[in-house]
C-alpha cells in the first residue's frame, strides 16, 4: 500500500537536533551588567550554590535579625513608649556582625574570580572592564543593604504593632534606610579593595575583618580619649577613621538623630562638611583603586 499526497498525513518524523543558530535579540552591555550584578547579589547569599555555601551568610542573617525581633517583643510586652534603639543606631551597635558578613562575602565576590582566573571570559564578552567593577560593587552593596535593612524593617513592624505614631516611625525608618544604604556603599567599597589584592579567600576574609574591627576599635578609643583629655578639641572628628562611626556621625548631621557613640549636642556645619566630604572621598577613592586594580588584572 503506497501513500500518495492526498492520503492521511504520515505522523512519523525525525527532528534535526543539530546546532541551532540564534537570530534573536542580543541584549548587549546593559543586560550583561545586570546579569553580573544579580549573580553577585545572589552569590552573596549563597543562592544558586550548593547548600554548604549558604550556611555562613544565613546564620549571620539570623544572628543579626533575631535581636531586632527580641527588642520588638520586649518593647511590646513591657509597654515601652519608644524603641530602645533607633533605626540608625542598630547597625552601628551590631557592627561586628555586619563586618563578619562582609568579610565573608567580599572575598567570595572578588577573590574567587581572581583565583579562578575568570577575567578573560568576562572581558571577551560585551562589557567593559569598568562594568565588572561596578557590577560587583553594586551587587555586593545591595546585598549588604538588604542585610542591614532587614532588622531595621523588623523594628519598624514592631513599632507599628506597638502603635507608636505611624508618621514619625515611618519617617525615621526611611532615614534609617538611607543611612543603611550609605553604610553599605562605604564598607563594601573598602572591603572589595582589600579582597581584590589577594587570590586567597581566607586571607581576604581576615584582611577585611581585621581592618573593619581594628578601625572601629581604634576610632572609638580615640574619640573617647581625646574627648576626655581636651576640652577644646572635638574628639568626635576621629570618628572618620571608622566607617560605622562615620555613618553614625552623618546620620546625626543629616537627619538630626542622636548618635550612637558621641556627644549628644547637635553637629556643626564644619563637622557636617568634613564628614560628608570624607564619605565621598573614601567611596570614590576606593572605587578608583578597584578600577585601577582590575585594569591590570586578567589580560585576555
Amino acid at each position, binding site marked *: 500500500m503506497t501513500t500518495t499526497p492526498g492520503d492521511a498525513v504520515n505522523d512519523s518524523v525525525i527532528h534535526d537536533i543539530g546546532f541551532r543558530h540564534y537570530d534573536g535579540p542580543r541584549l548587549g552591555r546593559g543586560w550583561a551588567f545586570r546579569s553580573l550584578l544579580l549573580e553577585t547579589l545572589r552569590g552573596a547569599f549563597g543562592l544558586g550554590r550548593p547548600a554548604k555555601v549558604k550556611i555562613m551568610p544565613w546564620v549571620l542573617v539570623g544572628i543579626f535579625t533575631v535581636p531586632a525581633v527580641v527588642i520588638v517583643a520586649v518593647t511590646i510586652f513591657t509597654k515601652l513608649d519608644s524603641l530602645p534603639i533607633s533605626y540608625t543606631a542598630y547597625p552601628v551597635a551590631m557592627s561586628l556582625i555586619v563586618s563578619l558578613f562582609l568579610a565573608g562575602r567580599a572575598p567570595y565576590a572578588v577573590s574567587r574570580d581572581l583565583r579562578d582566573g575568570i577575567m578573560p*571570559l568576562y572581558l571577551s564578552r560585551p562589557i567593559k572592564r569598568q562594568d565588572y567593577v561596578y557590577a560587583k560593587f553594586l551587587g555586593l552593596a545591595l546585598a549588604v543593604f538588604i542585610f542591614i535593612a532587614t532588622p531595621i524593617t523588623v523594628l519598624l513592624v514592631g513599632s507599628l504593632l506597638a502603635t507608636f505614631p505611624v508618621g514619625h516611625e515611618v519617617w525615621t525608618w526611611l532615614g534609617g534606610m538611607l543611612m543603611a544604604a550609605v553604610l553599605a556603599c562605604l564598607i563594601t567599597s573598602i572591603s572589595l579593595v582589600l579582597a581584590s589584592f589577594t587570590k586567597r579567600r581566607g586571607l581576604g576574609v581576615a584582611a577585611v575583618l581585621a581592618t573593619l574591627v581594628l578601625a572601629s576599635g581604634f576610632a572609638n578609643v580615640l574619640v573617647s580619649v581625646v574627648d576626655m583629655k581636651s576640652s577644646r578639641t572635638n574628639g568626635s572628628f576621629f570618628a572618620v577613621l571608622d566607617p560605622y562611626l562615620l555613618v553614625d556621625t552623618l546620620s546625626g548631621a543629616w537627619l538630626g538623630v542622636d548618635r550612637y557613640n558621641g556627644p549628644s549636642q547637635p553637629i556643626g556645619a564644619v563637622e557636617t562638611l568634613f564628614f560628608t566630604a570624607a564619605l565621598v572621598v573614601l567611596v570614590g577613592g576606593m572605587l578608583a583603586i578597584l578600577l585601577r586594580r582590575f585594569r591590570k588584572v586578567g589580560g585576555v
Partner: protein
Amino acid sequence: MTAVSNLTVDLPAGVVGLVGANGAGKSTLIKILLGLMPPTSGTASILGFDCLTDGLAIREVVGYMPESECLPLDVAATEFLVHMARMSGLPANIARERAADTLRHVGLYEERYRPIGGYSTGMKQRVKLAQALVHDPQLVFLDEPTNGLDPAGRDEMLGLIARISADFGISVVVTSHLLGELERISDHIVVIEGGVLQRSTSTADATRLSGALLVEVTDQADAVMARLRERGAKVAASAASGTFAVEMSDEAVPSWVVTVVADLGVGLVRLQRRRHHLAEIFQTEADAAPQEVQS
C-alpha cells in the same frame, strides 16, 4: 611586550591555524581583534566591524576559549554556562536552553550537574569550549584547545573543532604549537614571528605533494631498486629496512614499482606520495631536509 605590526591578512572562512613562537604576538593579536586593545598602528577589522570602535559589537558575536585556567570550581557546568550565556547578551530563557544544548554538543551529559572542580582536564576543556559557543558566535578563537589532553582527548577535541567549522558553520581561529594537529584540522595557516606576519598559506598548499614516492617492500629491496634504476628512475635507500624513495620523474613511476614488485613476487607494504609538512616552514635553510633524491 611584543606589539603586532604590519599584520595584513585576510582570514578566510573555515578553520585558520595560528602558529608562532611563544611571545610572538598571538595573544596581542587576539586582544586587538577582540577590541580590547588598540593596535599601535594600522587598522584591524573583523567580521566587518572596526576593532577600534566596535569592540562591544564584536564581542557579542565572537567567542573566545582561553588557554589558561579560567573556570570557577565550585559551580556546576550548567549554572556557569547559563551565566556566561547571559553575559553574552542572551535573554534568560534563551540562555538556559542554549546552555543545555551546547553542553550536549560538546559532549557533557550527567556530569554537567556536578561542580566543575571535580572534572577531568578533558571535561574542563569542553566547558571552556561550550562557553565560547553558547551564544552562537560567528567566529571563535580557540587558544591551544588540546593543551593537557591525552591522545584520546586530543582526538576528540580535534574532531569537535572540525565539526564546529563544518557542521555548525562557525569560523574558527585556532592557535597551537602542534603542527601535526594544524595540518589535520586547519584549512589555512598563519605564521607570526616577533609580532610580524611571516606566512599566510593554505594548508593544502603547505602539505602539497612533494616529488618523492616512498616505497616499502617485504624483501629483496636491493633487487627492486636495481630494476627501477634500469628503467631510469632515481632511487635512494632509506634508513628503515626494505624502504626506499623514488623520484617522481614520471607519472608512471608507481606503475613501474608495482610491475617490478609483482615480477619479483615480493610483497608491497607501502606506496606513498610524500607530502610537504608545516614543519618545513620552521626549518632554516641550513637544516632544511633535502628534497632531492640522489641515485
